């Protein structure tokens, strides 16, 4: 059986998750404090392997939706996620066996830990992305035609909204986004109810344990004063594809997303080369000249060149020294259906996706 997640595991997950956040996903610091309060009150949370879910068990995702900027200002009161979850159970007429994370990269890695503690149910060691993506429908269950609905949203004022059905998950994204703004810019949601059998097929296994392992290796590297970048590279089986310094930074808000690009001038072995990374909350495409070095759905993470701390697209600044880590995405995203949902073309780049293989530069 799996691990029981306590306060220290939570610290490690919050440390490792932003590496999978690829620049987006929000800072897990406050999500960690919210979850820690729940763990301190209710005790540790069993982490169960995806493969161990019984066929007919009901699992439901718990997440925060909305602007990270709002979340850090209008902190939850701690009951929202539980109320959203209970309302969905009530609608379905069944109790959930476990909860899971929709997005292991960033803030939503820690939210379901608090929910699981408060509800006294296990957390599944899996997620719906294996990284971070900006929209509700960009999850692996979409590839198996599993709807996000019925879903519920709850705010701190006591409002709960139920969305019983939408024709597809893109519509869910639209409706839920509007409701979230009405609720003050952030809401707690319960969604993607599914059977254990569906979950085993559709979710990405091991993501929470993966985030925890990255956090653990990073912390050990700091303690041992060894190279944190190398520790992360090994933990993720990724590649440190570029090292450089931020020389240009371009940000704008478009359709509610922070879009932009960052230019890096190579240092060390990359001296004389220039890398351009486009982002839309998350880092999407990394190019040297016209050559694509890596692209979404593979993971492109910026790490502080000295400490290995992941840098969000909002945290980028001129002059920063960064290392670019590229990690292969889950094979589910590399299918035709996967790429049509989260490939470079969906984000508006006329680029053909080439899977990033280790060692390729």
């Amino acid at each position: 059986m799996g691990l029981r997640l306590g306060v220290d595991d939570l610290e490690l997950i919050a440390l490792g998750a932003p590496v999978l956040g690829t620049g987006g996903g929000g800072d897990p610091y406050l999500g960690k404090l919210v979850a820690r309060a729940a763990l301190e009150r209710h005790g540790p949370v069993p982490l169960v392997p995806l493969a161990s879910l019984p066929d007919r068990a009901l699992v439901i995702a718990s997440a925060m939706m909305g602007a990270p900027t709002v979340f850090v200002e209008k902190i939850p009161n701690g009951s929202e996620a539980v109320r959203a979850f209970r309302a969905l159970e009530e609608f379905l007429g069944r109790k959930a066996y476990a909860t899971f994370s929709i997005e292991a990269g960033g803030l939503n890695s820690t939210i379901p830990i608090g929910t699981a503690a408060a509800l006294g149910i296990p957390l599944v060691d899996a997620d719906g992305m294996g990284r971070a993506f900006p929209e509700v429908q960009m999850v692996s269950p979409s590839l198996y035609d599993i709807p996000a609905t019925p879903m519920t949203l709850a705010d701190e004022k006591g409002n709960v909204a139920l969305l019983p059905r939408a024709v597809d998950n893109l519509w869910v994204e639209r409706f839920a986004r509007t409701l979230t703004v009405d609720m003050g810019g952030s809401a707690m949601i319960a969604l993607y109810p599914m059977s254990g059998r569906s979950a085993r097929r559709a979710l990405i296994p091991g993501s929470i344990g993966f985030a925890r392992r990255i956090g653990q290796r990073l912390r050990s590297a700091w303690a041992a004063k060894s190279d944190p970048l190398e520790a992360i590279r090994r933990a993720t089986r990724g590649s440190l594809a570029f090292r450089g310094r931020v020389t240009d930074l371009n940000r704008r808000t478009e359709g509610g997303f922070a879009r932009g690009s960052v230019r890096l001038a190579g240092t060390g072995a990359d001296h004389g080369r220039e890398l351009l990374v486009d982002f839309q909350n998350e880092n999407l495409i990394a190019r040297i000249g016209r050559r694509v070095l890596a692209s979404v759905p593979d993971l492109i993470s910026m790490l502080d060149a000295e400490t290995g701390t992941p840098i969000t697209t909002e945290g980028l600044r001129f002059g920063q020294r960064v290392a670019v880590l590229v990690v292969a995405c889950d094979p589910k995203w590399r299918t035709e259906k996967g790429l049509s949902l989260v490939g470079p073309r969906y984000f508006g780049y006329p680029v053909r996706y080439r899977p990033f293989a280790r060692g390729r530069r």
Partner: protein
Amino acid sequence: MKDAGYRIGIDVGGTNTDGVILDPLQRFVRKAKSPTTPDVATGIRVTLERLLDGWSGDRRAVRYCMLGTTHCINAILERRGLDRVAVLRLGTPSTDAVPPFSDWPASLRDVVKFRSFSVAGGHEFHGRVIRPLDVGRLHRIAASLAGRVRAIAVTSVFSPVNSEHERAAARVLRHDLGAGVSVSLSHEIATIGLLERENATILNAALRSVSERAILGFRRAARALGLRARLLLGQNDGTLMDAAAALRYPILTVSSGPTNSIRGASFLGGVADSIVVDVGGTSTDIGLLKGGFPLQSARPSLIGGVRTNFRIPDVLSLALGGGSRVRTDGGLTVGPDSVGYRLPQEARAAGGPTLTTTDVAVALGRCDFGDRRRLRDLPRPLARAVDRRVREMLEEGIETVRISSQELPVVLVGGGSVLVGAGRLASLPVVRPEHFDVANAIGVAIAEVGAEVDTIVSYEGAGRAATLDRLRAAAIARAVAAGARRAGTRVAQLEEIPLSYLPGNSVRVRVKACGALAA
């Protein structure tokens, strides 16, 4: 535009309290130093006495005294002399999952926390009320605090967007408790990010007595010496506030030291846009100045182990200085450790056992220290290799803080700057100004009055240009209210950060305005 009258700048550092007198044209007149004392005030008095002793000028012509001090940060680090604080958070039904003092080191929380209360109130990001402010509860809380606490911190959800509830709560508390209780309001101190802003506000409240003692001590010393100058304090961002404001916002002075140092250096170097490299004994600070102000960091920073988000100067610190150890076993390394203040005993040139960067500078004939003959056995190629390594480290740091390919001058200051040989650094011209040993005191003496607006706006409706114009005018109005002369008060910095997942092109805008002191 210059102000009539002389000005005195005093910088209370960890080791020394430095002072300077500048004339009405901001030219250097005199400088003095004395050791910093635990009570702060004595060190200030001695430095002032040394400055004024034998000065032929008219003491009554000193119009302003500017004080830059690190005693507030030391009080927090040493948990010394802090007040207990009652904390009010206006935001129920939101925010209760993470109560005040979450994630504080127990040693600090135990001396600062009196009690915390959550009260209905607060606003949404677009300014709508979450819940009306529970005024009845505020009265009851005030009654329970009467006579038991001298400092209160009030934080309301989204107060940087709408501060109405914080101001209303302050009116109730001041009415019920009287002027003897100080009320710190979060929107006046820090920015979006409730917990970090609340932390900064609590620390501000806890510094009440500490700042009173220092400011009253300074005032008394100045009066005893026949000075009638107006007292102003240097803030973290390089601008000034008057003594009355400093008593209310002591937290805004905690990192004024590095700011004053790099501003003073750029002033001495005669360049407003520059890269300042301050080489000390154990470390080197490198900062970028634009329009005479250091770039600032809004990333969360730890003050005494507490996460806060008020803006501090973005200074890069390298473990390189005049006392850095040089090792040759297993490849050449410089630092990161340093012999520090023991240089006069430890260094080879002084007869000690340790090879330091200063020894190399002595061997290369760059400075007089100890006895050069003691370094006769130091191979010339090794000295040159160390010299190259030091230069590489500095150039690497300069490249890191540099944000464009524009050719900016490098202002090289600090006791350790003798390490660096002549010529350009990172292909940039180098300026080495005089009087750099009192750069901090000069930095605070030349400061202007400033104020900031930091808020979230939508560009839909009024549009970007009109919205930015409105915020520029608001920042200038605040600077004037803080004591700047209207003519010549200008916008020094403007920053826009687009926010994700919010409607209507929501942008966080920060505008900083500053101007000369009003007469």
